[in-house]
């Protein structure tokens, strides 16, 4: 499949980790915030003189536009792709699946590749916004290498629309320094401590799925509930907790890092990144449950550079490339070929690969939670309360 199947050397790994550590802060400043940070990237890319010169003139065009999440890639991989193909990778960063869907529904996004989460595929197919994948153009994709749990949502009605990027969990990150060195273990504690000694120090996501989901979990309800009574309970809790929040944002790493925030709803990769740099920040899963998810590489139907899109996805599926991605973003891979290349301490890392009994209460997001108007409106009411 790939020409070069060497494991990356120990030295290369250490260099990567080091450059990630050094580079991560500057990257974050510009990529995150509101997704508007992407404007800077777009502007940079639109000045021809600033684009890297291709090593050779490829036939896939001079660029490929990727819509993705914050802190989610190894920038060096994009440079390598540009060196190999001549196509510059233009990155647009978003905060939620809802936002991506809204942009695609409105039309004319200019994206070629995006990274939707498991529960969105049914709607993308229903709305005819997503391109069925031609597997012959993805020689690096080996279905047998992937754990089915994290690959199955990419197919709808037997047709393949997405190939797994990585999976992860949604838990919480807590700065244990402020809690006598102790972490917490449930969503109930998350909200209780926020209204008590962590008042003014907690962040919840600007994302209905995880914020409402966590509040539902605190009552022992399903993360995916659309039951009116259960949603009303969750809303009451969220409104009560709002005056005690530090912020409502999906860009929680800066606040956690500079010490303003002590507790946040957190995706496992961010948890890993925070914990690596500041060991006092622990990443834990709520014992009532929470979200387990899988993100996929996919191509929007509206893409005008499909050859470039396939080339980028195929490039990223190369286990030698993907292993560098995992080292950068800290999310677990569903690809056994990539897993085998990971250093042993990461294979046994409790944040990246949590024990099975901790994962079992977690739920995959359901399609209905994406489109349920009551959940959407509840979130909007909570924010403008």
């Amino acid at each position, binding site marked *: 499949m790939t020409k070069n199947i060497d494991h990356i050397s120990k030295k290369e790994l250490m260099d990567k980790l080091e450059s990630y550590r050094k580079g991560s802060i500057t990257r974050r400043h510009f990529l995150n915030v*509101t997704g508007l940070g992407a404007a800077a990237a777009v502007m940079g890319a639109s000045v021809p003189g600033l684009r890297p010169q291709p090593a050779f003139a490829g036939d896939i065009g001079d660029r490929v536009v990727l819509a993705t999440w914050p802190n989610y890639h190894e920038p060096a991989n994009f440079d390598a792709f540009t060196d190999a193909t001549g196509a510059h990778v233009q990155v647009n960063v978003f905060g939620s699946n*809802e936002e991506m869907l809204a942009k695609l529904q409105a039309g004319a996004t200019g994206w070629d590749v995006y990274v939707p989460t498991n529960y969105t595929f049914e709607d993308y197919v229903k709305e005819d916004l997503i391109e069925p994948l031609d597997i012959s153009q993805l020689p690096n994709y080996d279905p047998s290498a992937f754990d089915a749990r994290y690959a199955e949502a990419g197919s709808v009605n037997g047709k393949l629309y997405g190939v797994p990027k990585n999976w992860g969990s949604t838990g919480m990150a807590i700065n244990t320094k402020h809690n006598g060195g102790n972490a917490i273990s449930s969503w109930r504690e998350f909200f209780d401590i926020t209204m008590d000694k962590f008042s003014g120090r907690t962040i919840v996501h600007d994302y209905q799925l995880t914020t409402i989901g966590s509040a539902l979990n605190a009552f022992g309800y399903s993360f995916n509930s659309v039951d009116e009574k259960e949603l009303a309970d969750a809303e009451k809790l969220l409104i009560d907790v709002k005056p005690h929040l530090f912020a409502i944002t999906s860009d929680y790493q800066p606040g956690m890092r*500079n010490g303003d925030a002590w507790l946040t709803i957190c995706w496992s990769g961010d948890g890993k990144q925070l914990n690596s740099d500041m060991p006092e920040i622990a990443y834990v899963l709520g014992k009532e449950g929470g979200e387990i998810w899988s993100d996929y590489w996919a191509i929007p139907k509206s893409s005008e550079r499909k050859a470039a899109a396939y080339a980028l996805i195929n490039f990223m599926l190369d286990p030698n490339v993907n292993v560098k991605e995992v080292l950068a973003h800290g999310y677990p891979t569903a690809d056994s070929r990539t897993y085998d290349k990971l250093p042993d301490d990461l294979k046994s890392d409790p944040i990246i690969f949590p024990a099975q009994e901790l994962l079992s209460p977690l739920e995959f997001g359901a399609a209905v939670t994406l489109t349920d*108007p009551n959940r959407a409106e509840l979130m*909007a*009411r909570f*924010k*403008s309360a």
Partner: protein
Amino acid sequence: MTQRTRNWLLLAPAGTWFLVMLIVPLTVVFIFSFGERAPSGGVVLALTFEQYANLPARWAAFKNTMTLAPIGTLSALIIAYPLAYFLAVKANPRWKTILLVLVIVPFWTSILIRSYAWIFLLGGRGIPALLEWVGIEGLRLINTPFAVLVGIIYGYLPLMVFPIFVSLDKLDKRLLEASSDLGAKPWKTFLQVTLPLSIPGIATGCMLVFILLMGEYLIPALLGGGKVFFVGNALVDLFLQSRNWAYGSAVAVTLVVIMLITVTIYMRLISRLGASREDVSIM
């Protein structure tokens, strides 16, 4: 070519621009505002007033906008006036150009990046840490209405300084001498001559800042931490998160109407204050 045709031809580019970029979108938004949310987001055309009836659910956003926009405008005015006065009247002409350029310099960098800088200044390791050093502890600045106000004043100050500067710069200095010759004390000269003659600049500056503030999105999003919510933020949420275009359109139409009413009242007040309507250069 007659005079008439030539006039129409000259007006055509601006007219087309207004039609395509202003009238058509506003009409679309107006029509959408009577529609309903489509099942998976977007809009289905209908004729219902449901969206307007639901407006109280965004009361907090309107309230925040309607308090922080005027407060921000007034604060910017109070800070900008002495600066503009100094630049126009007191500053050594040799330095004037340099000082004016210094006022513009911040505009060379994106407001996004400049506001991001304030996140660090107002965050726990910024100004509060300095204050702790002199004994003021536990002060929280970031993600409060105060932080948003600071960002607003910082971001919009040049827009206030320039119109006031222009009207003070045009001011005939002989009037000030005359006033003084006739025995007026400096403060009386200021109140009776300088201030009234600079009202067109004040009016223009306030109008520019106020109108832009009513639609502000970025500063509350960055410095308010998602907790200080403007109508602009509510609109972004309605279109991008809950994808309720019909309700979003109703909120947008309401904002436009509120602005029209406010600006009309404001114009009346200004003209009563002595400045004629033509003096306010943006209307």
